[in-house]
């Protein structure tokens, strides 16, 4: 089946279209979206098996040969990201079935989630820079619907900011692509890489590299460009927030990873130094935010920024260790952030508020939720047997290997702050004397816990079974270290 790389895009697209015919029939909406997500996961697993055996899979859409048509390129990195996206989406849909009111589900919620998945899988899989822009818009427009759905005052206010900032960054993306096209005259990513290598004119390429960093930094929330994120992510309800926090910033990170290893690897002294500095500043700023707040949502939201910084630092050092750690940490972070948001959502459902002062002593009535959260916290901070450890270890080793001192030390220090900030939720929310809970959805707590627990099981086995996962990650990193592998797979010279 030569169309295999396409299936993770086509299945949710078809499901989303079919769901549009009967938006008011909630049961059918739920069933079809779950079936489609499971099918997407299955397709991703088959795809990974295929890549493991036969190397990078490419598909030239419309049968046009590589530099002229649009290719879909599934290397191990994008296939793993597609799989993780599927798992995260499945957990969130499962959670939404219990968490969201019927009113909410009747207004195109599941359709928007399916189209979000189309955009994300497309952005991970495409081998054409303008096609990547189109898929960015697909998931951004779905996210505009998701952020404003419900129509509360805060959502309306924040969606205006969110849409504004993303429209600006999309316009910048188009201009960046226009500059790049003006210089190299092609849009195919493998061909761009070839042409840049032949060009031998580092000045203008460096400018374009910084331009791309600006664009993807706005999407992925790195240091000076993160300002829209805390407010925008605080407004929508928890399942939407979990999707955003786990997936949307990560596609910006993936795009930086891809462009900085495939296009802009010639003059690394300047571009990658800037990327490294911004990544470290993101970690610092995220840590400050995570320490400052006593609002459970805000604490986890600032942890997103820390994670983005850690991953991008791994990319910036450009050593095999650093890149491998970045991929390890990227996959871990997508899963664990979703689990954390879902668990925090349960605490909010019980307490009826997102502030820590209205929580306390929950471990008495909800021990399972409490201990799941505890394990999730340890995993987030990177305690050895759990999933966050190996990625951070490799990134730190990569940093030291590149002869840097400050970067790895900041990352190690930030782990303590991450642990403290997340443990603050645990000690204040679960320990202490129980309070009067006003949450209307407290009776749902045990049902909401199941998808979060499933995610935690996946995260734990990812950490414990790192030895089994390692070959896949190593294969994912190969084209990042040596762009020739990617180029040869696409252009088949």
């Amino acid at each position, binding site marked *: 089946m030569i169309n295999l790389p396409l299936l993770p895009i086509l299945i949710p697209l078809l499901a989303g279209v079919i769901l549009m*015919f009967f938006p008011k029939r909630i049961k059918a909406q739920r069933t079809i979206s779950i079936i489609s997500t499971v099918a997407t996961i299955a397709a991703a697993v088959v795809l990974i098996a295929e890549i493991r055996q036969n190397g990078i899979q490419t598909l030239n859409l419309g049968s046009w040969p590589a530099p002229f048509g649009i290719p879909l390129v599934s290397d191990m990195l994008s296939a793993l990201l597609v799989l993780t996206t599927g798992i995260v989406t499945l957990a969130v849909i499962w959670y939404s079935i219990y968490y969201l009111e019927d009113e909410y589900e009747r207004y195109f919620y599941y359709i928007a989630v399916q189209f979000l998945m189309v955009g994300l899988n497309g952005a991970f899989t495409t081998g054409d820079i303008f096609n990547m822009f189109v898929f960015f818009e697909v998931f951004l427009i779905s996210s505009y619907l998701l952020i404003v759905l419900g129509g509360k005052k805060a959502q309306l206010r924040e969606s205006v900011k969110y849409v504004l900032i993303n429209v600006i960054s999309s316009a910048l993306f188009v201009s960046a692509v226009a500059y790049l096209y003006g210089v190299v005259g092609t849009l195919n990513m493998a061909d761009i890489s070839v042409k840049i290598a032949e060009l031998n004119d580092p000045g203008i390429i460096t400018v374009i590299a910084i331009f791309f960093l600006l664009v993807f930094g706005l999407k992925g929330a790195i240091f000076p460009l993160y300002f829209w994120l805390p407010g925008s992510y605080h407004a929508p309800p928890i399942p939407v927030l979990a999707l955003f926090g786990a997936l949307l910033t990560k596609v910006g990170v993936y795009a930086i990873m891809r462009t900085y290893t495939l296009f802009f690897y010639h003059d690394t002294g300047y571009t990658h130094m800037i990327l490294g500095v911004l990544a470290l500043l993101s970690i610092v700023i995220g840590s400050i935010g995570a320490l400052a707040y006593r609002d459970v949502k805000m604490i986890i939201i600032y942890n997103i920024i820390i994670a983005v910084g850690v991953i991008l630092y791994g990319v910036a050092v450009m050593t095999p260790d650093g890149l491998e750690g970045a991929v390890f940490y990227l996959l871990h972070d997508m899963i664990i952030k979703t689990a954390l948001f879902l668990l925090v959502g349960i605490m909010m459902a019980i307490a009826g508020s997102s502030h820590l002062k209205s929580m306390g002593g929950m471990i008495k009535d909800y021990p399972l939720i409490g201990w799941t959260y505890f394990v999730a916290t340890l995993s987030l901070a990177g305690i050895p047997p759990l999933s966050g450890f190996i990625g951070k270890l490799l990134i730190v080793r990569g940093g030291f290997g590149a002869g840097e001192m400050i970067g790895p030390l900041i990352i190690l220090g930030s782990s303590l702050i991450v642990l403290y900030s997340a443990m603050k939720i645990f000690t204040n929310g679960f320990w202490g004397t129980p309070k009067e809970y006003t949450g209307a959805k407290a009776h749902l707590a045990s049902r909401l816990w199941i998808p979060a627990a499933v995610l935690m099981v996946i995260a734990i086995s990812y950490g414990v079974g790192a030895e089994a996962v390692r070959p896949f990650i190593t294969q994912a990193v190969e084209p990042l270290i040596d762009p020739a592998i990617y180029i040869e797979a696409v252009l088949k010279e």
Partner: protein
Amino acid sequence: MRKTNDLILQTVTKVISFIIILFSIHLFFAGHYTPGGGFIGGLMTAAALVLLLLAYDIKTLDNILPFDYKLMTAAGLLIAVLTAAGSLLFNVPFFTHAYDYFDLPLLGETSLHTAVLFDIGVYMVVIGITMTIIQTIGESE
């Protein structure tokens, strides 16, 4: 509110909207060889419907064209996706189109291309989206 007499506008609209729709269909079919295509064709058909909306009102348009435009959007998307996905059945890459020459009764030798099916999808989506936007804004108080 003072009742206005729209006799001239309504009479002219009856004639003009037909011409606009014919022109939009011409643009739609011209797309393969000359400027035009699904997007501009759909937009112009929607413009004819908007002219009807201006001359009459939302209820009248609903009576003469009882479409659910959201369903129309969905149907258009489905046609477009299925056209592209049809290539999966023949195990060729997604979006691979096929064409051939046929002798049709009235038109003589004509080339039929599956890209037209995709364009019909685009055409319906554009009409559906435009009319959904205009009707939704028009109906909200």
